[in-house]
Every structure is written in structure tokens, then in C-alpha cells.
């Protein structure tokens, strides 16, 4: 539950932690597209919200007027000198050009399609093990017992952390991604007192002593312009990989399973035509895109007639762009064989989700193995389904009954 007062008016007072938005943001965006396509709210110290595909894309491509220095809107709005520009706290997602390209180039090879394909057997085995642990007879929570476990265990393996630490990550991630409506002081303390910082430092020290064939050692040995990365850069990127690689894919897997539980015709078709799954996966990504990014306005200027001021927040809702009827025919319908699908679930422009190949692989394998095991299932308690608050949207409880 949000600690903020309920929203009075979505065009002038929106809040992405409001319970109405959390439960079902689509009607809000549909109405704004018609009435006020770039909304403004005084909350969080001043925030903008474009909801049309055209405007979301324009912001994503405009790195001159919008900075990525901080990409999670919260009460703890950084001042002009609070964060190291152009690096930011978690490079390269918080970096701007030209540094961004250097930090990103370093990571791209590890997340290219071919190295990610090599992780598929591990992921498949993991999915099968998780399904072995579920009880078809009594029903179980597909979000908690299945979807949540997959990305966390894959990223833990990629970073070379102990598998038994997976549960710790969920708490760290909640602090960063979901606890955004707490007062600024509380949020700064959460970030600074550093349980997560200590954890990362311990893993870095272990890897310095005993280098491994994993991303942590890769980052520690990587060089930019002949220099090792600064310790802050290494730790920031590790936090980024954890945060960006877990909540997001968990949400996409959970939302896809929720869709299949509530749409028997799609479920039956996919179980009968597994070759359609890659196309359906893109449609699930479009319709249930988990990630809304954010920018800060870097200089005063006018955007679509709106007076933007340096330091204003701007929410960048790729999920809203993906439901724009001007850009997608039948935007509000999930069409699992949609042939033309230029969705923006992984963003647009230079900050395209670094882990998109990984996310796609995990989502496809997770659904493939699930449907192979459980072609027929439904929600056992539709009212018990809950959705996460903040900029990563996905179901956090999906109680299912296997039919």
C-alpha cells in the first residue's frame, strides 16, 4: 500500500504507487492519451508522464534534454551535484553519453545472443526442478514458487554468487525498486546504510582472492582506456545486474502465466502449437511490459507544449507506449500470433535493455517447460492476485490450480 494520499486527478496529480495505478494502470493511460498525453504531478518534487508511443520514443531518443543520472523516481530526488555525472550510481543505466557507450560496450558481449543461448540448458533444468517441487494436486503460487525463482538463480549464477543467497536478493531489490514512496530521509538511509553494499563488497573481495569464470571477475579485470574500473563502477554495475535482471523477468514470467491462467483459449492454442511460443512471448512482452523507466530533465525546455525544468522527474512508461492504439492495432487485446510487433518492452534507443536476450530466453524456456508440464491450469483465487508497486509491474501472487 502506498503511504501517499490517494490521487485526486490523474492528469495533474498522478502517482505510480497509487493503489488504482498498481492494480490496473491501463484505463488511466488510455484516458490520458485522449485528454492529456503529457501529464504532470507535483508529487516527488515534480514529475512528468508522457503516455503516447510517439512521445515516449521521443524522450528515449533525446539524451540531450533528458539525463539518466537517476532512473527510479522517489522522494529522494538528487540535486545537481549529488551523483557522479556522467557515470551515475549504476553504470551504464545511469550514465549519459559519451561515457555511457564505453560502459555499455564493456558489458554487451556477455549479454549477446550467443553467450546467452549457452545458459539455456541451465535455465531449462532449473525450471524443471522448480516444477518438480510444485504440487499439482493442491495448487501453488506460480509467482512465488516458480516465476520468482528463475531469474534470481540465473543472475546469481552469472555473477558467481552462492545459490543459497538468492533469498537475500529479494529484500535488496524491494528496497531499491519498490520502497519508493517512503520519505526521502528513510530512502537515503536505506541506500546508504549498506547491507547491500556490504554484501557486494564481500563478494568482490572473494573474487579478488579467487578469480572465477563469471561476471564479477570479468568486471574486476575489465579495463576502460587502459585503466581498471573504479571500485564504485564495479559495485554499481553489479547492483544494476541484480536489480535489473531479477524483478523485471520475474514480472514478465508471472504476468504471462497470469494471462494464460485467465485466457483458456490462448493457453490451449499454445499448448497445441508450441512453435507459436516465440511470437506469443513478444506479445506478452508488449501487453504486460514490466518496466517503466525514468529520466530527469537536464535543461529547461518545452516538450509537446509542456514547460520542463531542469531537475524535473519524467516517468517513461514503455508499457503505456505498448498499448497506444495509434501505434498498435487492437492495442488492448492480447493477440498471441501478432505478426507485426515493434514493442518497446525493452526500451528504445541507446539504453535498450542490456539483458533483453537473457530475459527473452528465460521467459520462453519458463513458459515452454510450464506448458509442457501443466497445459491446463486456472487461478484458484482470482481475488488473491496482487501486483507490485513502482516502476516494475508484475503479479506478486498468482495462486493456481492445476486442472
Amino acid at each position, binding site marked *: 500500500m502506498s503511504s501517499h494520499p490517494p490521487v485526486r486527478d490523474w492528469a495533474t496529480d498522478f502517482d505510480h504507487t497509487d493503489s488504482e495505478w498498481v492494480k490496473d494502470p491501463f484505463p488511466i493511460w488510455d484516458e490520458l492519451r485522449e485528454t492529456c498525453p503529457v501529464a504532470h504531478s507535483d508529487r516527488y518534487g515534480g514529475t512528468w508522464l508522457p503516455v503516447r508511443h510517439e512521445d515516449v520514443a521521443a524522450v528515449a531518443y533525446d539524451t540531450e534534454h533528458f539525463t539518466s543520472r537517476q532512473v527510479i523516481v522517489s522522494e529522494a530526488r538528487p540535486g545537481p551535484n549529488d551523483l557522479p555525472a556522467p557515470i551515475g550510481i549504476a553504470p551504464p543505466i545511469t550514465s549519459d553519453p559519451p561515457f555511457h557507450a564505453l560502459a555499455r560496450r564493456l558489458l554487451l558481449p556477455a549479454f549477446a545472443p550467443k553467450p546467452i543461448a549457452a545458459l539455456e540448458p541451465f535455465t531449462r533444468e532449473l525450471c524443471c526442478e522448480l516444477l518438480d517441487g510444485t504440487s499439482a494436486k493442491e495448487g501453488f503460487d506460480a509467482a512465488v514458487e516458480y516465476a520468482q525463482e528463475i531469474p534470481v538463480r540465473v543472475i546469481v549464477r552469472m555473477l558467481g554468487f552462492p545459490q543459497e543467497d538468492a533469498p537475500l536478493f529479494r529484500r535488496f531489490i524491494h528496497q531499491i525498486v519498490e520502497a519508493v514512496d517512503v520519505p526521502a530521509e528513510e530512502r537515503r538511509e536505506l541506500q546508504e546504510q549498506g547491507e547491500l553494499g556490504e554484501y557486494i563488497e564481500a563478494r568482490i573481495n572473494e573474487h579478488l582472492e579467487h578469480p572465477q569464470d563469471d561476471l564479477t571477475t570479468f568486471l574486476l579485470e575489465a579495463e576502460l582506456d587502459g585503466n581498471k574500473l573504479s571500485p564504485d563502477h564495479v559495485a554499481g554495475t553489479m547492483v544494476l545486474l541484480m536489480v535489473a535482471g531479477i524483478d523485471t523477468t520475474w514480472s514478465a514470467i508471472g504476468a504471462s502465466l497470469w494471462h494464460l491462467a485467465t485466457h483458456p483459449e490462448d493457453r490451449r492454442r499454445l499448448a497445441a502449437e508450441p512453435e507459436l511460443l516465440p511470437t506469443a512471448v513478444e506479445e506478452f512482452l508488449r501487453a504486460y511490459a514490466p518496466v517503466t523507466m525514468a529520466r530527469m530533465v537536464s535543461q529547461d525546455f518545452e516538450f509537446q507544449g509542456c514547460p520542463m525544468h531542469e531537475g524535473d522527474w519524467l516517468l517513461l512508461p514503455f508499457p503505456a507506449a505498448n498499448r497506444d492504439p495509434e501505434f498498435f492495432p487492437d492495442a488492448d487485446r492480447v493477440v498471441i500470433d501478432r505478426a*507485426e510487433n515493434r514493442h518497446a518492452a*525493452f526500451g528504445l534507443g541507446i539504453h535498450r535493455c542490456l539483458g533483453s536476450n537473457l530475459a527473452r530466453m528465460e521467459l520462453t524456456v519458463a513458459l515452454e517447460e510450464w506448458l509442457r508440464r501443466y497445459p491446463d491450469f486456472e487461478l484458484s483465487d482470482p481475488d488473491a492476485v496482487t501486483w507490485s508497486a513502482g516502476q516494475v509491474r508484475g503479479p506478486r501472487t498468482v495462486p493456481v490450480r492445476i486442472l
Partner: protein
Amino acid sequence: MRVVVDSEKCQGHNRCYALAPEIFDVDDLGFAFAIFDGDLPPELEAGARAAASNCPEYAITIHEDEA
């Protein structure tokens, strides 16, 4: 029919490589390029069209033959 990938626009979404690996490949950084320089065999034309119409960055263009 010929296909061209605009490397300035490509951001490595890899939709083309997933949809038509017989036409597109990706480099070590995950950026796409067309394997076919010249005319595509007719049986690959549908794959090229699918790739072009699923690229979020509009990085793929199709050039139909004049003949």
C-alpha cells in the same frame, strides 16, 4: 529483394536474428548485420519482411527489385 540493416539505428534488440537467422547474424556485441549482400532467394523474402516489421528501431529496410 535486398535487405539493409542501418547500423546507426540498430540497438541490438535482435528481433531480426531471432526471426530470420538465415538472413541476419549478430556480432560479438549483439548488433545485427545482413548475411546476404545481394538479392535474397525468394523463399527468404517472408523472413526478411517479418524482421523488418518487428524491428523496434526501424533499422531494417527492404528494397524491392525494380524488374
